[in-house]
């Protein structure tokens, strides 16, 4: 097994190779405005470090969000195109699950929430029974509106760090953005145990901002 994992749903541009046992190489750069530029060079670097060519990969793992759309699509279309060109499967995972898994690897136990920045004063979030078990569907909400549901729970991720009023037990020493290494490790574990994956389609959670125009504006001065 040799998995290439990618995720561009958080400010991190992250790629990693995982051989089924452990992470072989990883590149993670935090730069929310350059996902499109940085991802391919990151993949190239990771493969170079491992001394393998892309066609040695047996599967592609991709974080399908939720995340800010423009960046999110970079990772997904890259993963889908790699998979099509190489004729290997692509395994989608919820981005929040990768962050939860990383929190578990870092020692967090029991119940907690993961929240990332959804911009527009909202967070993408989900609740976990433990690092491998998500118990709510990923959602997008204003922090104030979910304060009651997350109060007192340990909270992980940049969305939690941003809104300490709502997330009262923020663990800001834990990874705040996605790590493709953790995502790949989660995927490897699921592949071994027969766990389920998501299709390689983005979790947008919001409809596009688009308004059906009202009747056209009259131009004749009244």
């Amino acid at each position, binding site marked *: 097994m040799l998995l290439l994992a990618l995720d561009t749903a958080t400010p991190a541009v992250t790629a990693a190779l995982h051989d089924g046992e452990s992470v072989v190489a990883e590149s993670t750069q935090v730069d929310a405005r350059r996902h499109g530029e*940085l991802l391919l060079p990151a993949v190239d670097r990771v493969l170079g470090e491992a001394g393998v060519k*892309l066609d040695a990969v047996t599967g592609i793992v991709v974080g399908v969000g939720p995340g800010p*759309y423009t*960046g999110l699509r970079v990772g*997904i*279309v890259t993963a889908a*195109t790699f998979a*099509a060109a190489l004729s290997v499967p692509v395994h989608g995972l919820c981005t929040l699950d990768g962050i939860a898994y990383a929190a578990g690897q870092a020692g967090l136990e029991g119940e907690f929430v993961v929240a990332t920045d959804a911009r527009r004063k909202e967070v993408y979030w989900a609740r976990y029974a433990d690092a491998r078990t998500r118990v709510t569907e990923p959602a997008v909400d204003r922090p104030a509106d979910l304060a009651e549901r997350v109060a007192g729970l340990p909270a992980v991720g940049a969305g939690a760090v941003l809104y300490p009023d709502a997330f009262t037990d923020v663990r800001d020493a834990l990874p705040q953005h996605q790590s493709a290494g953790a995502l790949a490790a989660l995927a490897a574990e699921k592949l071994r145990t027969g766990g389920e994956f998501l299709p390689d389609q983005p979790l947008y959670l919001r409809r596009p901002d688009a308004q059906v125009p009202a009747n056209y504006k009259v131009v*004749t001065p009244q």
Partner: protein
Amino acid sequence: MARRTDEPLVLGIETSCDETGVGIVRGHTLLADAVASSVDEHARFGGVVPEVASRAHLEAMVPTIQRALKEAGVSAKDLDGIAVTAGPGLAGALLVGVSAAKAYAYALGKPLYGVNHLASHICVDQLEHGALPEPTMALLVSGGHSSLLLAPDITSDVRPLGSTIDDAAGEAFDKIARVLNLGFPGGPVIDRYAREGDPDAIRFPRGLTGPRDPIYDFSFSGLKTAVARWIEAKRAAGEHVPVPDVAASFQEAVVDVLTRKAVRACKDHGVDHLMIGGGVAANTRLRAMAERRCEDAGITLRVPRPKLCTDNGAMVAALGAEMVARGRASSSWDLSADSSLPVTDTHVPGAHGHAHEHSHDHDHFHELSKDNLYS
């Protein structure tokens, strides 16, 4: 071994607006032109919604690549390069195509060519009428552009002579169609009504045609307002609005200015070929008037078939093939989508002029979008 010719086999990807296009060409020969359009999803909004377009590109990308390969009957491993529209266009939409092209080129071990959308609109005519004369004069008209360009070398030297100072020609068609309640997009429906109307029924203004106006620039905003006011006056007076006459007279005003300025540019620069491209090039009145005026002026007119005039991947592949044929430098793996790529940048060569070399830190970057990056 598969049969090879010396002409480059290139796959081109276009996602600058609402069409997901993948084309494959061998030199000047069109092998495939697969297009998935999201135009129907935009119709009720009366214009292209960037986020709707970007979502549709992502869904259509891989299936459209596969459809093009099947249509062309070629194997991806035989490609000599992958070309992609790097700009100008909608930032989020471009980014889907650029990311896909990079992944595809990287996975196949092929050189990548980030190319200019406007130069591609010109170069597509090589698939229809053979090698472009050098120089070529080009009039590009669509919902996104209205430009007069002089192209001494389509791979390296494209010079802007003039462009619209307000609305694109196609936008004016959309807006007038909306005032007349004819739906979106406006071009084809106005063209249809105009055929039954009198182009001389109403004398609408010709923008920027005064003696002191810029010779090669266009303006359609004043025309649009004049047409809307004329219609509103009729409606206010309780009179019937003669849609065919309004459509024909409006269209005549647009087409008159476009062709007059294009022919003038050819004469001024001693160019005996005019190429017309972009979605509005499908307009039957534009074709007819351009033909007549070019003939009168001794200019050879080249207009590709309508499907090659609207946005498509074949035009990108055509320019990519020309880049390969002329040995132009390929792009780097950090190629970015540039929504405002200048028309003078016919392509985006890599920092070291080599696709398989990556620069570690790149201290300049293009703003992907002003306020829409995260939405």
